[in-house]
């Protein structure tokens, strides 16, 4: 309750900022589409994901005002992000999920 009294008003964000962010987002989208045209092989997805992360960061920082929010918000988002990473990494350690599905593989551990 002690926090309630002094909630900080974040500065007014200009319309211009929003419009520039929007333009950047549109440009990044065209970039992804364009890149998909070239054949970057295994990097295509990596680049597409990188662009998606940049876009998300823009949306988060400006449209969702994260730039102006207290630190707690940032920590909480970090925790969620890390959990997501942990879940993916630990599932991927079980690499039988990829090889087994298509063809037969030995179940032994090779040393």
């Amino acid at each position: 309750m002690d926090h309630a009294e002094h909630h900080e008003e974040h500065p007014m964000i200009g319309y211009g900022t929003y419009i520039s962010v929007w333009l950047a987002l549109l440009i990044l989208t065209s970039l992804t589409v364009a890149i998909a045209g070239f054949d970057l092989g295994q990097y295509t997805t990596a680049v597409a994901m990188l662009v998606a992360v940049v876009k998300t960061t823009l949306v988060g920082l400006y449209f969702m005002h994260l730039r102006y929010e207290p630190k707690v918000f940032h920590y909480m988002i970090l925790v969620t992000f890390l959990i997501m990473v942990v879940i993916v990494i630990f599932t991927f350690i079980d690499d039988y999920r990829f090889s087994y599905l298509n063809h037969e593989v030995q179940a032994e551990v090779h040393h």
Partner: protein
Amino acid sequence: MAQTAAELSYTPYHRETSAFSGIFSWIFSTDHKRIGILYMISVLTMFIGGLCLGLLIRLELIAPGATVIDAPTYNAVFTLHGVIMIFLFIIPGIPAIFGNFIMPLQIGAEDVAFPRLNLLSWWLYISGAALLIIALFTGDKLPDTGWTFYAPYSTATEGNISLAVFAAFVLGFSSILTGLNFITTIHRLRAPGMTWFRMPLFCWGLYATAWIQVLATPVVGITLLLVILERGFGVGVFDPAIGGDPVLYQHLFWIYSHPAVYIMILPGMGVISDLLPAFTKRTIFGYKAIAFSTVSIAVVGYMVWGHHMFTSGMSGTAQIVFSFLTFLVAIPTGIKIFNWIASLYKGSIELRAPMLYTLSFIFLFSIGGLTGLVLGALATDMHVHDTYFVVGHFHYVMFGGLGIALFGAMHYWFPKMFGKMYNEAVAVVAWALIFVGFNVLYFPMFILGWNGMPRRYYDYLPEFQYWHVVSTIGSWILALGIFMMLFNLIRGITSGEKAEDNPWGASTLEWTVPSPPPLLNFLEPPHVTHGAYDFEAMNKGKKDSKKKKKGKK
């Protein structure tokens, strides 16, 4: 006892009038205390339902062959027993009942951050329970997958799975709302002076739990949704006939359900950390160590889910990694146990009923946890996986851990919630029956499991009968104790003696308000100046305020 001025002039929360009357003043109330009571009634009702199913399982297993029910019924009974106990009893259990009632009092708040969401969460709980019951009476065959809903059995069986799974989904939502509410409450509504490290450890337990509720439950939500989609439309992600991988289902299920076991136990551990100081009259040993171990259990708990899948056909590397990390979880848990028993040292110990539950928690949970290590070790789990050893393990940790902590909490906070006292002698006898019955019921399961008795078996080989009979007898002793305990508490509500504001002489904030508390909890806004278990400061504070009062006169 002479009534003080404060007592004369306040209305306890349950007498407070509101826009609604009668039962509606409860089921539409947004008061965290009323919602806590609503949860208490509904969760305990579900518990008794699950308990009866458990007794039925045990009765069936008293002899090999058909005894009282047929195989499909038996399979539905253990499925329902598991689903009810997990989703309707143990996960909501302590957070929804005592988290709701006690936590805002402990941090000096008037209510939780989102009272209306809190009510919605209860309604979702009730809807989930109702859906589950509807699932029993509709469809061709009862749901019979076990509480784990493993694919592809769950996507193919003719049992009424979709509705049961949807019920679990709704209950997950209810759990998420509770978690979200508690995190916000603890962040925003702590009273002036209530710093993080002055919070009672119960709040720490709830805080860590709430994060798991928020960050793990959605994963099982989507998994269960996919099971429904699989049944309805054949999307194929878990169905090998279409191209899916059933083992991936297990990954997703346990990504939630292992962290969920810490949703179950952390609030219980919080209760124990609160009860110990109250009955030893000394500060807890290693407050920060306990707080940090709570958080680290929650964190490491995210990385061990694979230990449920050692025989499922997971890669060798994954098995080694998951086994290793499983052992790491034992360390913070051990830290808690050691700090708890150190908190007994040089205390002034009073063996009241809640304290008896506390001590038996430490004993039973340790047995459960230590047998968890047998399961976590690779070689031994290959043998005991899916046997009664596992059944023994999880009843010891869930029932012997959280269940017993819940019983302890029910006795400990009883006077605060109802303003009455139960009969101490009956409470102790009931405790003794529960403690003995519990061990007679579940300990034989370790022996059965080590000897190769698989779980979810309707029938078994004659050589297993001896320990099954012992176990069944234990179930009756346990049930007797539980009914005695419940009876004693209900009698306490109807005709118990009036309780004081702080009958145990405990040090946390909830004991500074009248029993039962008024609608907005505190007659005067609290100002916290010392740690949760600082008995010296508390006693000094009391003397000071007495002096002040005298001075005024």
